[in-house]
């Protein structure tokens, strides 16, 4: 019953895209429609999770001679729930959208949501790839909504290149999955499941899926596009790109590696994801401390969180290969819970960043500051989101990272000194990433939302208007629920664990505690929250009872700095710490090694009148080791093609003859086998 309705929602969303393209833009209709349909979709997927069951249907369109197949099970329902919840919040936020530029994104927004839902609902390779590519293309169009700016165009070009790379990996991957079937080509997942790949074919599927979907999710070293492209889109779209789209890519990884490839895969299958995940977590979190743009910070931290989720998936694959299904369930539970919570709080943070950009007139950290005074509700929502970003208890991100840590701490059971040492290093790297994430959260809040305003425009910022405010408050409330009752969210995830790793976590998950094993003490989020509340309340009451009431106001002490001059009513804004200065100790210690960060001081000689200059350059390692060789190879290929053009006719004819003979030899070889 729910599946046809979900399919109808996809069709309706795609239809809304057409409405958005018709001449006078009907913004409220399109965004309101998106919000409404997504809300219905969220209720339906929640219902599917509460009453688990699998359903399939086929639609007689698609490739000639084949119909499209749709299905939902407990795994896709989790991701559908996340998608529809974040999409409805983003659409409600967009009701407050403004400016003609954002209407350029209008036709693509509903298509984007519909395409993501389609790839989650797909039950055959064609539908999945169709939805995935439609998702890439529609979001690419929205990345380009400010096409007049060069940075936007560059980001769009890089994004399109990466999307093409994803497709070039994923299409052969699904092709390899469906070869080896006798008779007619059957692309349905049920048929693929019946004949899981083995040997070299399985290895190729693993590599191609991890590269293709990993590039879309932003795993290091294929993450270079993400901190550029995600911030370039309008805020409500960036929110969905970071919150939901990266999760769709992770869904594809989980679907293929756990479901379609069957349970009989070797232990080492998890290592590529584990290594890429750890690198993403550390590099993403470090970059989140270096970026100077509010939305770039958030995008870099998406790389970090995707890394955490990939670590969980990789660990679950390793544990499954070692026949430790309870450990696999623990790791996968952490990964799925982190996907859910990160989706919600990152959407909230991007919406908040959009509100700050609109209210404060800029999204560059160095041009913001003091928004807490003018935008208290937005700041409150950002604080809630940043508690998640920093993974502090009892916030939304803590329970999932706690589960991931528990899985890593239990992993040495698998055995082998190499693997055990690797787990110890992994635990240290995860802690490093978590601490870097906390530093990034403090930097983001402290520079953009606290302190003194750095421009007159920020000093007169306006609070977000009603629909945007409600969208943010709703998500903040959801963050609170996820943080205080992770057991409830895990209850929704549990059927998927039973489906994928055949383990039963029901005895370890309660509304009050989450335990790493059935009879071990665990993490009691409500208890910790109550403890904090009692302690804070007691301190508050004690102060009320015993301390003097009231307070006085005065200029900041700052070790006796002079009062600000009359022409700078808030003091000189550059005398406070900014984004670059906050990051300086980390940049010097970790940035020089990992990001090739260099500081250059240009100090004029005594007597010269020019100003001194200080500049910082940093370069992502993936840039140096991936993009540079690609560019170099392209140059070489162009040179070769160029020289072909100027061959004499005799040589050209002989080249053609050789190529023809080669092709014939290949055809003959295929015929013979």
């Amino acid at each position, binding site marked *: 019953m729910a599946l046809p309705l979900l399919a109808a929602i996809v069709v309706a969303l795609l239809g809304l895209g057409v409405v958005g393209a018709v001449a006078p833009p009907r913004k409220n209709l399109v965004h309101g429609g998106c919000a409404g349909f997504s809300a219905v979709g969220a209720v339906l997927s929640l219902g599917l999770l509460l009453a688990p069951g699998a359903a399939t249907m086929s639609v007689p369109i698609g490739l000639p001679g084949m119909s499209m197949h749709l299905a939902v099970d407990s795994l896709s329902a989790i991701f559908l729930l996340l998608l529809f919840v974040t999409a409805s919040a983003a659409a409600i936020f967009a009701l407050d959208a403004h400016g003609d530029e954002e209407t350029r994104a209008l036709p693509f927004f509903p298509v984007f949501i519909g395409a993501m839902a389609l790839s989650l609902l797909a039950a055959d390779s064609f539908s999945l790839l169709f939805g995935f590519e439609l998702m890439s293309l529609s979001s690419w169009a929205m990345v380009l909504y400010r096409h007049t700016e060069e940075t936007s165009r560059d980001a769009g070009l890089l994004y399109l290149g990466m999307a093409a790379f994803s497709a070039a990996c994923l299409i052969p991957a699904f092709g390899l999955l469906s070869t080896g079937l006798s008779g007619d080509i059957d692309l349905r997942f049920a048929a693929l499941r019946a004949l899981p790949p083995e040997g070299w074919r399985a290895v190729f599927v693993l590599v191609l899926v991890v590269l293709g979907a990993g590039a879309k999710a932003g795993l290091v070293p294929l993450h270079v596009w993400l901190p550029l492209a995600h911030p370039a889109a309008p805020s409500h779209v960036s929110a969905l790109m970071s919150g939901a789209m990266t999760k769709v890519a992770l869904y594809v990884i989980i679907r293929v590696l756990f479901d379609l490839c069957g349970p009989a895969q070797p232990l080492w299958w998890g290592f590529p994801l584990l290594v890429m995940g750890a690198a993403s977590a550390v590099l993403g979190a470090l970059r989140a401390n270096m970026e100077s743009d509010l939305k770039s910070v958030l995008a870099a931290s998406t790389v970090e969180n995707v890394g955490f989720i990939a670590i969980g998936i990789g660990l679950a694959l390793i544990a499954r290969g070692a026949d430790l299904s309870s450990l696999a369930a623990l790791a996968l539970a952490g990964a799925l819970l982190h996907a859910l919570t990160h989706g919600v709080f990152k959407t909230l943070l991007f919406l908040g960043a959009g509100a700050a950009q609109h209210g404060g007139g800029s999204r560059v950290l160095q041009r913001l500051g003091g928004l*807490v005074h003018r935008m208290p509700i937005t700041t409150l929502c950002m604080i809630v989101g940043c508690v998640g970003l*920093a993974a*502090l*208890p009892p916030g939304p991100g*803590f329970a999932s990272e*706690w589960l991931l840590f528990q899985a890593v*701490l239990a992993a*040495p*059971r698998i055995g*082998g*000194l190499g693997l*055990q*040492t690797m787990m*110890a290093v992994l635990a*240290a790297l995860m*802690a*490093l990433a978590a*601490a*870097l994430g*906390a530093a990034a959260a*403090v930097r983001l809040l*402290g*520079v953009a939302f*606290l*302190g*003194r305003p750095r421009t007159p425009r920020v000093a007169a910022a306006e609070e977000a208007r009603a629909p945007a405010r409600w969208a943010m408050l709703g998500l903040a409330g959801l963050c609170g629920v996820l943080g205080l009752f992770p057991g409830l969210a895990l209850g929704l995830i549990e059927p998927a664990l039973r489906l994928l790793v055949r383990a039963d976590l029901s005895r370890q998950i309660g509304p009050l*505690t989450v335990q790493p094993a059935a009879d071990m*003490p*665990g*993490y*009691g989020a409500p208890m*910790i929250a109550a*403890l904090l509340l009692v*302690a*804070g309340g007691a*301190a508050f009451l004690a*102060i009320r009872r015993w*301390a*003097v009431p009231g*307070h*006085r*106001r*005065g*200029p*900041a002490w*700052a*070790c006796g*700095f002079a009062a600000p001059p009359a022409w700078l009513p*808030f003091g000189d*804004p550059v*005398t*406070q*710490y900014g984004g670059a*200065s*906050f990051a300086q*100790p*980390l940049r*010097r*210690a*970790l940035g020089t090694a990992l990001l090739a960060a260099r500081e250059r001081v240009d100090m004029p000689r005594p007597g010269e009148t020019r100003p001194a200059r200080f500049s910082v350059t940093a370069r992502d390692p993936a840039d140096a080791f991936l993009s540079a060789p690609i560019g170099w190879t392209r140059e070489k290929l162009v040179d070769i093609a160029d020289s072909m053009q100027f061959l004499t006719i005799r040589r050209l004819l002989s080249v053609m003859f050789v190529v023809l003979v080669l092709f014939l030899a290949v055809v003959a070889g295929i015929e013979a086998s």
Partner: protein
Amino acid sequence: MIFFSALLAQLLHVALMLAAAPVLIGAIRLVKARLLGRRGPPLLQPWRDIFRLLRKQPVLADGASIVFRAAPFVSLAATAAAAALVPSFALGMALGPVSDLLVIAGLLGLARGATALAGMDVGTAFGGIGSSREMTFSVYAEPAFLLVIFTLTLLAGSTNLDVIATLLHDGALGLRASLGLVLVALLTVALAENGRIPVDNPATHLELTMVHEAMVLEYSGRDLALIEAGTALKLLVWLSLIAAIFTPIGVAPSFALLAWPLGVASWIVKISLLALALAAFETSIAKMRVFRVPEFLGIALLLGLLAAVFLFVSTGIV
């Protein structure tokens, strides 16, 4: 009956921790002064300071927002919650089942985050420098702390501090080389997390060397009292943590009421010895440059990793 004694032990433990924290600071200051040949302040001076500050209205800086005013409460509440979870004189207290080491690390992180935000809130250079350095130090300290937790978890099979401390108390885990390495790593982390010499100087009045003191520079009056109580409590939490793991002698089970006095006495002795060692260490060493702290904590990280590898090699889990 067992539940009530566990609850009673818990309440007594919290009261003991809250009361003893400022005394601990007083004791360290006193010993340091004596070692330097000064007479030093009385033992209860920190308590007197807190009461004096509580009677004073705070002067809020012009740009201070609600974050600045809420931060002392959040910070103290998080530290107190961590203090409730770290055992002192008894094991198996009412909150024992939730006293997870990762949660304790998280709660201390929450306290740190709240203070760091407060440092950024007024918008002065000193607040910013303090916040930036505090968060940077935590980036180096957390991985080392996690490796300590990793090794303890390998030994005890759980991240729960109560379970770990009980197993160590019963002597079920024996004496291991890894524990020694872990002890050194944990001591190093504790020095950094509490802003003690050589990482930071709690008594400094030279602006450019301040980390923690720079963050809370704008606080005054009763807000400062909360901050100081929180700082003192944090130090006691770390010392109790070290004592609970590495010197499990004399700790009473929470249901054996008659063993409590011995537990309290042994806890006081242990904390006093640790305080004495800390004061002697701080007197004998100079503060290091901020940019050398990564090397200092890198040693802790390596020791933590070595401890884990030793354990893998020595036990049968290979």
